[in-house]
């Protein structure tokens, strides 16, 4: 469904991605690994139109969507959840979800159905719907961040280090939750993670980046190979 080919992204004169290729198939969870500064987050931002793409193409269901603005990507069925600042701290939980639904087409009934679906998936958010997002716990905030994206029922979810800052016990729960929303909503997930071991348990496919270049793509079952690649990177 998502095809990235020959992607170049630069901050001014500083190139962060050079000629990266990546494919995400429907309903797959794809882990995107690499150490700090490898360009993982930039790749997500480039796909979503938050960062300008200098060269290369992004295709979604065969249609070219390179450098289109985020609201177009949201309408098309892609949603991006950034690593930081991923909720509206001073808005209520319900207003956060309404923000998530701004690009939802359809009538009030369709809107209500989305709310019901998200509240059913995360009952805690229904309980806390009048609370401001900043009073939520770390785990709840991460649920809210993902739920904001789920409001338009995307076909592809781009998650940027969702486990960052969570306690280890919560990290495992978070990854289980990602699998269960993938199963429930039937979407693909492109997951950037530092927490490679945990992420490998849920990933179907893996892509590894090294200094902005793409060095491995394949099934997650080749765990030893992936870990060795990353290990070599960490050593180097």
């Amino acid at each position, binding site marked *: 469904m998502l095809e990235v080919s020959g992607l170049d992204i630069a901050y001014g004169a500083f190139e962060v991605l050079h000629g990266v290729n990546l494919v995400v198939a429907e309903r797959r969870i794809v882990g995107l690994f690499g150490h700090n500064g490898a360009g993982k987050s930039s790749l997500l931002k480039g796909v979503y139109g*938050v960062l300008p793409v200098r060269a290369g193409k992004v295709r979604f269901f065969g249609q070219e969507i390179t450098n289109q603005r*985020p*609201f177009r990507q949201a309408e098309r069925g892609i949603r991006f959840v950034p690593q930081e600042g991923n909720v*509206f*701290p001073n808005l209520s939980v319900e*207003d956060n979800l*309404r*923000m998530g639904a*701004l690009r939802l087409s359809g009538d009030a009934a369709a809107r209500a159905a989305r709310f019901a679906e998200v509240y059913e998936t995360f009952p805690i958010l229904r309980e806390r719907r009048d609370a401001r997002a900043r009073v939520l716990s770390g785990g709840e905030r991460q649920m809210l961040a993902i739920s904001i994206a789920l409001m338009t029922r995307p076909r592809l979810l781009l998650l940027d280090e969702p486990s960052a800052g969570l306690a280890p016990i919560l990290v495992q729960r978070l990854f289980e939750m990602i699998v269960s929303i993938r199963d429930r909503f039937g979407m693909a997930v492109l997951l950037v993670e530092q927490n490679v071991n945990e992420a490998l348990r849920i990933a179907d496919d893996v892509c590894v980046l090294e200094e902005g270049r793409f060095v491995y793509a394949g099934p997650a079952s080749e765990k030893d190979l992936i870990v060795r690649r990353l290990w070599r990177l960490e050593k180097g």
Partner: protein
Amino acid sequence: MLNLLQVFSTGLGLAGYYALVAVGFALIFATLRIFHVAHGTVFMTAGYAFFGLHRLAGLHIALAAACALAIAALVGLLIDKIIYGPVLKRGGGMFSVFIASLGVSLIFESGFLVWSKGVVSVARAELLDIFIVGDVVLRRFDFFILAIVALAYGALYLWLHRTSTGLAIRGLTDNSELSAIVGVEVAKTRNAIFLVASSLAGLAGVLTAYDTGMTPASGVQTLFIGVVAVILGGTRNILLGAIVGAAALGMLTAFAGYFFPEWISFSIFAMMIILIIFRPQGLLG
């Protein structure tokens, strides 16, 4: 004898003007991080347009006021489109926009000075319509201003809390990056913000031209009073902050004017500096 009630009622009348200018400035600053000095220009433009259309062109007063409002809204929007937009597009930051805004403001100020040679006023006999309660003299016009402010704030509240544009604006205030990511069309929302904020400044400008008259310096003066009101109230809650700041400042001005009239500006800006040092988040924040 000290007539506190009289000072209080004068302060309330002033607070009305301040509130209309301050809330628009706060709206633009909180959502777009633009220090819109030329907001005062928009205010002044409405006053001069009102004067020109009514006094010089002879348009009916209500029609002239409506046209002046529309002109103010348009001028505000165009300042953003023609000046701020290109500055930001070329990589200019908040400071460049501020300087550009100051430039716009000075250009308009000189323009109005050349055109009007001084004060213009639309004042009419209705302003003399007063009534006396005990030993307090009240102007009917002040009640009219407060009613208009209440209506404007009510409409703004509904806009911000009951419409999707309003939701987008609250989102932008809170987290502008995430707003763009979840799909707020920032350019469109920006237009709405400038149109609404400029109409409110225009409303204050028309009322001021009618009440005390406009001078070429009124724009910058009023803008800075609005800015201080916003600093006082904070931008966490745009509406409440602006009204609290404006009310506090209206009272301060009235009291300073009563006890030591030469020190009005001193009191306002001394208060601003004290607040910036000790409570930079504003009284409410």
